[in-house]
């Protein structure tokens, strides 16, 4: 086997091949630019993916019940889940709810005289209806 250790130490080549430095530098810069472009593209794709993932997480989660409901939603249920009042409701009751809410709104906004005036008007309308 000989002395491999010493042989290994002698196993060095002094490289004396010719290198076209200009060509090497040109190729190097092309590769560096290409690398930078690829890196930018990678970052962009990563950021875009991250935004998509975050967006997906931030969206309200639909429960299975909601999903089933939407899947089985029929026209007949529109009235049931709508916030609009039913056509068949008592008109006097509807009017009174409306008046009460309006009075509250005017009162809360500090328009006391307007509130009182409004009450008078309501009383007048009621009297006329009677």
């Amino acid at each position, binding site marked *: 086997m*000989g002395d491999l*250790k010493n042989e*290994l*130490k002698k196993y*060095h080549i002094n490289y004396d091949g010719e*290198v076209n430095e200009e060509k*090497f530098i040109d190729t*190097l810069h092309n590769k560096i630019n290409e*690398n930078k472009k690829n890196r930018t593209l990678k970052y962009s794709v990563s950021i875009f993916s991250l935004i998509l993932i975050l967006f997906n997480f931030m969206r309200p989660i639909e429960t299975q019940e909601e999903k089933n409901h939407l899947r089985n939603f029929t026209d007949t249920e529109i009235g049931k889940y709508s916030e609009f009042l039913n056509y068949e409701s008592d008109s006097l009751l509807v009017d009174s709810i409306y008046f009460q809410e309006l009075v509250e709104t005017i009162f809360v906004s500090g328009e006391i005289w307007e509130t009182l005036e409004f009450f008078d008007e309501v009383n007048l309308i009621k009297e006329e209806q009677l």
Partner: protein
Amino acid sequence: MIDIDKELIIKFQKGDMKSYNALVIRHLKNTIGFFYNITSNQMESEDLAQDVFIKLNKHLMKFNFQSKFTTYLYRVNMNTANTWFKRNRWRNILHLDQTVEKGEYDTLLETSWTRKELWNAVGKLPLKQRQVVMLRVAEELPYKEIGYVMGINFGTAKVHFHHAVNNLKGILK
């Protein structure tokens, strides 16, 4: 003594690409030589040297001179060579490259195919041993400097080389 490498790197960090080119030219032949010792192929050595200088272009911006530039360069060379060894191992497994028939070690040591065989064997060594062999054989560094490059002490570098040689004997048998 003026540290030319340091000056060139500082200028490069300020955006002067000409300084980077000058740094590349200064270390080009040694870097190609390092890989030529391992691959015995000029084209492949130049490609590997390109990889090294692409890495340097990216990382030298953050280089803060805690070690000598040449030490840093040896480390980048070693890492690039390690990647090459891994890639080459797969290439051999997939028979993309012609594998050389093994002959009598003593008589054929000086021939080029034995060199190839030797480096194939080096590629099979554990990482630390492989690194010591690369620096000792391809770069002809003294143990003290090998220890400095690898972040180990002088004695440990010597022990790694001793184990590497024993392992190589086993692989080349």
